[in-house]
């Protein structure tokens, strides 16, 4: 095909694509505009059951109590994503570029504050915006900053200590759920008095796991473990 013909086909493809996408956007916009102005959704049902949930923040109640099964599976998705990354190859022990001294100095001051922040977000999640996922994300950011500011990752901790922390969230969630299956007759059906404490326990384990999983994903491969080199 001639150069001009190819260019013409390219432009035709581009404009047909743009028209199709505009049609799709128009359809989506029309669907949004035709939705009712007021939709209570499930907020009333959440509101009436807040008493039994053990926490005061409706989002945390939905995440860890009413739809705890979803959150359990999402923890599993995180773990499977990490296993996928690990199966693709090993991570380099040493970074190719030296960390900048300014970054190292900054991270030395920031990392403890971020870990404290993660703990605060985890605790405050019971009655205000916050919770395991937010706290885990802050923890992961601290971990990634630490990885960026050091020449190599701590090889000594990459064996079983890393794996224990990775499995902690999903493990605590599943174990609590299974125990409740026998005690109260339903998977993740919290007994009324203990709901708050159990949610905090699961969230604490999940925070650690989410943070470490996300930071481990940043390594881009399976970390090498063994004696410190």
């Amino acid at each position, binding site marked *: 095909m001639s150069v001009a013909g190819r260019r013409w086909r390219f432009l035709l493809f581009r404009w047909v694509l743009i028209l199709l996408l505009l049609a799709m956007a128009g359809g989506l916009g029309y669907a949004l505009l035709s939705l009712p102005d*007021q939709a209570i959704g499930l907020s009333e049902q*959440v509101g009436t059951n807040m008493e039994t949930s053990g926490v005061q923040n409706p989002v945390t109640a939905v995440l860890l109590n009413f739809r705890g099964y979803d959150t359990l599976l999402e923890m599993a*998705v995180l773990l499977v994503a990490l296993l996928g990354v690990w199966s693709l190859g090993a991570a380099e022990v040493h970074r190719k570029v030296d960390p900048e001294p300014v970054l190292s100095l900054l991270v030395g001051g920031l990392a403890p504050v971020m870990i404290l922040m993660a703990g605060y977000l985890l605790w405050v999640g019971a009655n205000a915006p916050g919770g395991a*996922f937010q706290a885990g994300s802050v923890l992961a950011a601290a971990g990634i900053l630490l990885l960026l500011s050091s020449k190599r990752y701590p090889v000594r901790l990459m064996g079983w200590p890393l794996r224990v922390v990775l499995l902690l969230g999903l493990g605590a969630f599943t174990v609590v759920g299974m125990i409740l299956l026998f005690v109260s007759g339903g998977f993740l059906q919290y007994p009324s008095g203990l709901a708050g404490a159990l949610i905090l326990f699961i969230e604490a384990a999940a925070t650690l796991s989410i943070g470490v999983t996300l930071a481990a994903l940043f390594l*881009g491969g399976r970390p090498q473990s063994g004696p410190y080199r």
Partner: protein
Amino acid sequence: MSTVLLYALTGTGLFTLGLYALIVHAHLLRKILAINVMGSGVFLVLVALGGRTSGAVPDPVPHAMVITGIVVAVSATALALALLLRVQAATGRAELTEESRE
């Protein structure tokens, strides 16, 4: 126009822009970024539509779904980036060409 609709329509706009970039660009990094933009659009629509309650408190169910969704999207992006690096290491290019499909 209400705030809810403004956010929701912005979300569909982001989704459409992301889909356009996903189709047009051959480079895999751009495709991954495009999928992330699409995901952000979906999250924006979900959060916006959760705000259509009469009181000040929005519907917590879509908010809970978006919170977990963001973390899952980040982990899926990390997996996609690791796959991208493997494709580049194996074929020398960060694109899916016609030859590499055979």
